[in-house]
């Protein structure tokens, strides 16, 4: 993953805390409360202390993120040496990236696939025909509204009509999004009982679902943008 190029170097072996000597994994020694260089084979799931699988417990994810932020945020090392401050900046950035990836189902699944395939998730253009058809239909409406907005708006009844259409599309996009997440949950159930070697078919199913989410999320931000523009 291009964005990770410089972060891969942070991976190291599980080592002892420089300060108190206890073994640690991650970037913080909870024995002596010291921020440390990242150790162990870390991924976003292990950083945030949640299981590596398609569905995560959102409440737990958030709680862990807040708890770890408390420990590694640069504000906590404001009077420390430059080296420690730099560590805090690195760890905090990584933690933020991990959280933003895992809390968004689309990003989380893409990331999980990349871990399973040991490389970036391939970007394919295909979702289900049904989703593609909805995407095209909605895009047409969006284009129409966009032209209307660019011309300066004006016509109040047309505006109300468009707003109603956009809100309708948004709701449908959300429903479809939820339906895909339901499918993700089904994969997740099977995931738990499957060994690492036998996950290939599940990963394949996730890949299709990630495309669905990708289209739907793109559509949602497009609709949101137009709702703001026309309001």
């Amino acid at each position, binding site marked *: 993953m*291009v*964005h*990770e*190029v*410089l*972060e891969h170097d942070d991976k190291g072996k599980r080592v002892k805390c420089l300060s108190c000597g206890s073994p640690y994994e991650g970037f913080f020694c909870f024995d002596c409360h010291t921020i440390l260089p990242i150790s162990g084979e870390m991924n976003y799931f292990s950083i945030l202390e949640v299981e590596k699988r398609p569905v995560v417990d959102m409440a737990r994810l*958030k709680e862990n993120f*807040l708890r770890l*932020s*408390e420990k590694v*945020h*640069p*504000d*906590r090392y*404001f*009077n420390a040496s430059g080296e420690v401050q730099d560590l805090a*900046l*690195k760890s*905090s*950035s*990584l933690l*933020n*990236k991990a*959280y*933003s990836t895992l809390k968004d189902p689309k990003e989380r699944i893409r990331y999980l696939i990349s871990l399973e395939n040991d490389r970036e998730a391939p970007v394919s253009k295909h979702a289900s025909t049904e989703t593609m058809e909805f995407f095209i239909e909605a895009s047409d409406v969006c284009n129409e509204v966009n032209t209307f907005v660019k011309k300066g708006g004006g016509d109040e009844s047309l505006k109300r009509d468009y707003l109603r259409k956009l809100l309708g599309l948004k709701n449908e996009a959300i429903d479809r999004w939820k339906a895909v997440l339901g499918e993700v949950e089904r994969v997740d159930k099977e995931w738990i009982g499957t060994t690492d070697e036998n996950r290939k078919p599940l990963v394949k199913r996730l890949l299709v679902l990630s495309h669905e989410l990708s289209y739907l999320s793109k559509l949602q931000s497009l609709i*949101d*943008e137009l*709702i*703001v*523009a026309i*309001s």
Partner: protein
Amino acid sequence: MGRIIGIDLGTTNSVAAIVEGGKPIVIADADGQRLTPSVVAFGGGTEPIIGHNANRQRILNPRKTIYSVKRFMGRRGSEIKDEDMFVSYPVTGSGEEPIVIVIDDKHYLPEEISAYVLKKLKGDAERYLGETVDRAVITVPAYFNDAQRNTTKKAGEIAGLKVERIINEPTAASLAYGIDKKLDAKIGVYDLGGGTFDISILDIKQGVFQVLSTCGNTRLGGDDIDRRLIDFLLKKIEACGGGDLSGSLMVLSRIREEAEKAKCALSSHDEVEISIPFLTSSFSLKYKLTRKEFEELAGDIIDRTRKPCLQAMMDAKLKPDDIDEIILVGGSTRIPLVQQLAGEIFGKTPNTSINPDEAVALGAAIQANVLSGHISNLLLLDVTPLSLGIETYGAFMNVIIPRNTTIPTRAGELFTTAVDNQSAVTIQVLQGERQMAADNWSIGTFALEDIAPAPAGVPRIGVQFTIDADGILHVLARDVNTGKEKFVQMKSTIDVSKDQVEKMVRDSMEHGKEDAAKKELFDAKVEADKVLSATRKALDKCMNLLQQDERNIIDKAIYDLEEVIKKGDTAGIKDNTTNLNRATERLASLLLVETAKEVVEKKAGHK
């Protein structure tokens, strides 16, 4: 090390605060005043007068009394509209130049003027604390870009303050609001000040104040309402036989003062009598302004806060019902119509429990204590307000760090060369949400240099963009092949030396406005030529791939541009250059594909 104070460096007023005995308090000046007008007046002595005293001579000495300078911080000439230049003191700067204020042949950058205000606050704090103060947390509007944040930092340095942290005004206000409460809530902070508007949505839990989204407008505030009111009064004066007074600075300053007073009075009264005796030797103004009339005048300005609010909710993926409280900050939120609108947008009565003038400074003082380690049960997680990206082929912006990403944050990008043996690559860094690079802020350029000679596409240079907790960008480059790493100095477009500024102003004085216009025309022509020749080259290659109607649109855009170039119409050239750029967007992407194909074919040929 000395204590860290919190400073709200506002458009209209500035405030300093500190935490004492666990409570944040405002530091009053020697006269017991808690707010210091952000006004600097030159005249008389060698040192300027600052604050209330400066404000008092605004009417007598409008040309040398500088106010609302925050609007010019970190801005280039081309970003400032004429109406924004409409202040009673002389400002210059066009195109890529920074804004410069000229007083008695001396030239001041906006950060130098702000530094005077900061120095005054520093002095007040030192007197109050009885010790040297040389460290501060300074607030900025959440929607400030990289250049504006850097400029604010510089203002602090000029004033002799080490700026330990830049924090966002609405976030600071949320700290002041939430510090004593054990909150577990989602809140919105609606901050309408003298010159800027911000909306931030936060999730507060277990002492962590996490910003979910922020949006705003750095050119929207009480100043705009004042200006609207002044224009209205000028028209009334003319209609009542007072003549056109818009040319007299002294009269304008008097009207301005009365307009501002009337605006404030209408927050608690239904009508107010505006009375300005002897505007001219024969004309005195008396006018009864009702709140309804005022609201009609200011309505559309206030309504401009609506879209950023909707955007912020969309970005936070929240509906009005999901937000527990909407907190009002900034002097302009005293206006009933503002409170009404905020209530309508968020579907609940806004919370006006915090002092709208002081909350931001108090929050800055709280954050200062977090940094010094005195408060350990509170943490601020803020976001970057604008997407950060780089300009790519076809003049598009490629987003690297999207808006509302929690900071600090880092992201990497790989770069390579476009031609054989290229030794340097220059990269343009942008901030903003628009698709075309030119529609966003250019925050600077950096060069990747000393690239070892190699065929095109072979060198691999990893560039890491870090946005720190101040919201300020740092760039680190590493040659992936050799492992050589170095910090890259970003050349900010507004980062100029004092000498350059002096020279620039001298030049513009010597040659006057005409030459500035000539230069602008010259620059516009150069840019137009660049685009024309690029278009022709692209057409040579990809003409047959275009639809007939696309071709027609491009031909017309070329024709139009050539016509205005012949006429020497600067504004026309600029507009038509933009048009042609737009018309050739698809052509540019076609060209990209064609070029890629050629490269592939060439490589295949080599094998």
